């Protein structure tokens, strides 16, 4: 089993967190999110992202507005709701804790 496979579940679990981060930074539409994730280990396809976005909207973490685009039909631009920002803050904190634990554990025993 490769590292890549081992971390499938973890990557999947972190995806929502990352999407929250991306949307928090700027108003984006789905293709923007995909292209930002595309260059990372979290590269994702539409087939996964769209159901996730719709779930996040149902949980009222994100909201969208239709906006005209220069070329083609109008697009859904996503933004965070108050609840979404709260969730992002909590998740970030929790992530800090986890990564702190991951960093410190081995070193504690080493010293």
């Amino acid at each position, binding site marked *: 089993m490769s590292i890549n496979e081992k971390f499938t579940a973890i990557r999947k*679990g972190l995806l*929502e967190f990352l999407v929250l981060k991306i949307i928090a930074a700027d108003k984006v539409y789905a293709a923007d999110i995909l292209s930002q994730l595309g260059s990372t280990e979290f590269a*994702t*396809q539409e*087939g996964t992202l769209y*159901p996730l976005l*719709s779930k996040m909207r149902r949980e009222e973490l994100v909201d969208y507005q239709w906006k005209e685009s220069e070329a083609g*039909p109008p697009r859904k631009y996503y933004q965070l709701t108050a609840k979404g920002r709260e969730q992002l803050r909590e998740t970030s904190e929790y992530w800090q804790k986890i990564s702190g634990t991951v960093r410190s554990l081995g070193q504690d025993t080493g010293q």
Partner: protein
Amino acid sequence: MNKVITINLNGNAYQLEEDGYEALRSYLEAAARRLEGNPDRDEIIADIEQAIADKFRAVLGANKTVVVSKEVRDVIAQMGPVQDDSGPGGEAGASKAPGAPGAAKDGPAAAGGSATGSPKRLYRIREGAQLAGVCNGLAVYLGVDVTLLRILFAFSVLSFGAGVLLYIVMMFVIPPANTPDEVAAAHGAPATAEEFIKRAKEGYYAFGDKRAFREWKWKFKQDMRQRRQEMRESAWAWRWGWHPHGAKNPDPHPGFWFVGSSAGIVLSILSILCVISVITLITTGTVFGFYLPWGMPLWAQIVVVILLFKLLKGPVRAMRYGAYYGGCGGSPFVGAFVHFCTQLGWLLLLFLFLWYADHHSSTAHDILGHLRSAAHHTVDAIREWWSQQ
């Protein structure tokens, strides 16, 4: 010339080649199935259609108005399978492991594609093979130890000679596993009873009518029981001087007994001779000092030798059967003739098949060539082992 189909994706018209249209339709249908029960199903499907439309627009231009099948497939590959982890309640997070309710919901559809769920297939596995990998592949397929199968084969060669022919036939019939995918398919899902039951439940085995299947099984068992019974009875009759097998001929001529027994002895001697000649043929290239004509490859020589012995044995065996039938009150000639004809016909068919395969299929030719060198290697290995003893 390809047929073009015009479709409406989220309000925009696109022209697709027919194959591409079929691929897209099945993709969207699978997506809709996956999203069964999702309150936002229609919206997600609309988003996905829109994304596909955007990608189609990117490949079309002023002079290109049709999306060809390959482009459709590429776009579908980019989109990726639709995965819905949320479920109807929307409570569960995205961290749910793959294969949880979402995947289980449409079990049969999901089972078709993935490597773990795919049905096991029989392949020859050349890696670690002694000859052509028939035993190797069979062992993996049946989930038994390969050495056991090899011993069984070796034993069948010694006792009947049919093992060699069976092996050769399987060599042609069973495809080799060349790509990693095929090797994976050869190992496939375990062929355990559990798996069998699971597949049977999924309707994997198309015995449409359960009652018909049960009836068939029952009848098969009955047949087998009856045949065993008959065999036991005839063996009994044979041993006790053909006391009435239907009481037709209570007092058989003693000549029948003599012919039957001596034919049996001759048959055993011929069988042993056959094995010895094949071994000498492989080791020295001659059969008791005789070269076989026509410059045939070694494999063909082996087949010819075995066939020759079969033919020699044919009449003797026919005599024995004749004696048996005669002893039991039937006509000795009918029994002998029928047996002889079946044997001959079967062997001729096999020989023709091998000959045809060698001349008309380059793969078969290569395999047979491979068998030859493999046989040499095996014999060398055995000799080396012998000299070390």
